[in-house]
């Protein structure tokens, strides 16, 4: 088992996989031609406002080579998939970075059957397809479209399809990246807009293709109209921030591309996920409606699973665990389309 170390750079939230010469997503796992997986830390914003959930995450290109793809389970049918703002994720990271955690930021003021293709679009070097179908159908679509699925993919796709048969497949086109001048480490932020009644954030997908002992790391930011109740199914999640979002943060976010919708008041929740892949078998359910608890099913739990209710209400401890949020949309699945498929087989 090899556990990759992560590299972060000051303001940049996205992380680089250390696999030299290989392309990778910045939002989850990467499966290489020979089936090896590199760990990539995930950063995601899941914002829920007026019945609409918006995911913002970044796909990072780490070099030329094979085409790389990810499949992201979505909680609903998106009305838009577009390029995200340029600094939203970085600004959120800065908001919770240690120096600002002391409160200075605010003062600064300022298939089977065929999967149904619902949407296709290109964003920079990414080819994005939104699919509707069961796990088998989406898996088959992915296979036919050059994705190499890891052995745990069938079970994980079924896990998500049982709740929401909507997936987003994203493939990095290395040739187009070259034409666009994208180099190793360049990220492409994506924002997905989904009307929802009961938001949830996929987390389990972050462990796709990893050995059970490998640690999944993710930073998950939530912006909601009110302080949320959160429900997760296991340990590994730390509630690091739960507070009214600063006016400076919201102002900065609102001025980013596509973020005009940010209202003057929102609740900021920051969760850090660090869990062995084997234990990350749940998602994060969210409720912002007073008196209504998050749905167990939305967290991927059944009646026999133990759940962790995470909330800072009533002065409860903030360390909790469980929950989480997840990574938003992120996910990952993935695979790599091997240029030389024979080398990936057997």
């Amino acid at each position, binding site marked *: 088992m090899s556990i990759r170390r992560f590299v972060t750079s000051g303001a940049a939230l996205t992380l680089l996989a250390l696999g030299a010469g290989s392309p990778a997503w910045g939002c989850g796992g990467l499966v290489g031609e020979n089936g090896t997986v590199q760990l990539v830390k995930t950063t995601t914003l899941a914002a829920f406002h007026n019945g609409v959930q918006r995911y913002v995450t970044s796909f990072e290109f780490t070099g030329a080579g094979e085409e790389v793809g990810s499949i992201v389970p979505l909680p609903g049918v998106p009305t838009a998939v577009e390029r995200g703002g340029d600094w939203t994720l970085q600004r959120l990271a800065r908001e919770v970075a240690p120096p600002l955690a002391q409160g200075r930021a605010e003062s600064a003021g300022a298939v089977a059957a065929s999967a149904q293709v619902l949407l296709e679009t290109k964003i920079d070097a990414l080819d994005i397809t939104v699919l509707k179908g069961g796990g088998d159908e*989406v*898996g088959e679509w992915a296979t036919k479209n050059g994705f190499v699925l890891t052995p*745990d993919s*069938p079970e994980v796709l079924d896990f998500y399809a049982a709740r929401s048969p909507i997936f987003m497949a994203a493939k990095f086109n290395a040739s187009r990246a070259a034409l666009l001048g994208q180099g190793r480490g360049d990220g492409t932020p994506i924002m997905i807009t989904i009307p929802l009644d009961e938001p949830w954030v996929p987390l389990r997908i972050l462990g796709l293709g990893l050995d059970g002992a490998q640690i999944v790391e993710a930073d998950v930011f939530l912006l909601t109209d009110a302080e949320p109740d959160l429900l997760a199914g296991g340990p590994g999640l730390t509630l690091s921030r739960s507070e009214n979002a600063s006016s400076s943060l919201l102002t900065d976010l609102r001025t980013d591309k596509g973020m005009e919708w940010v209202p003057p008041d929102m609740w900021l929740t920051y969760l850090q996920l660090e869990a062995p892949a*084997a234990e990350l078998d749940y998602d994060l359910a969210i409720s912002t409606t007073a008196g209504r608890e998050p749905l167990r099913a939305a967290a991927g739990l059944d009646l026999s699973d133990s759940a962790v209710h995470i909330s800072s209400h009533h002065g409860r401890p903030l360390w909790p665990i469980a929950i989480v949020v997840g990574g938003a949309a992120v996910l990952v699945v993935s695979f790599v389309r091997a240029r030389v498929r024979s080398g990936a087989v*057997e």
Partner: protein
Amino acid sequence: MKTRLVLVAVLLLAASTVAGGTVTARRALVAADDRPLGPGAVTVTLGIEHSAFNMKELEVRRGTTVTFVVRNTDPIAHELIVGDAAVHRRHESGTESNHDRVPGELTVAPHATASTPYHFATPGTFVFACHLPGHVAYGMAGAIRVLDS
């Protein structure tokens, strides 16, 4: 997930031990009357779902020819490779993209069924496995014990 990992660990242990010829099956697939299969011609159907064989152990008599019928209900391809430790060492690093010519070696496409025969001429312990990248580590291996009588 935790359960799955435990299973994987057990299977890996079984696979590696079997390859060394010392494994003892804990629960073998046997005939309806609880005796080992064979001798003679026997058909064994192996199901694959969520990258897992529905059988982990098989017990047959020397002189049995087993036709393995593999039903893959996954959206991804799988393999069935039957053989001794040397066979599996070769396939662990092999580059063949498809198996359809050697008895006991089979590639099964997504949502497909395929079959291959294998004759167990000598007693001992054999392994069946899928050697696609990561699949053995995920638990796709089992043991076949061939009895002398």
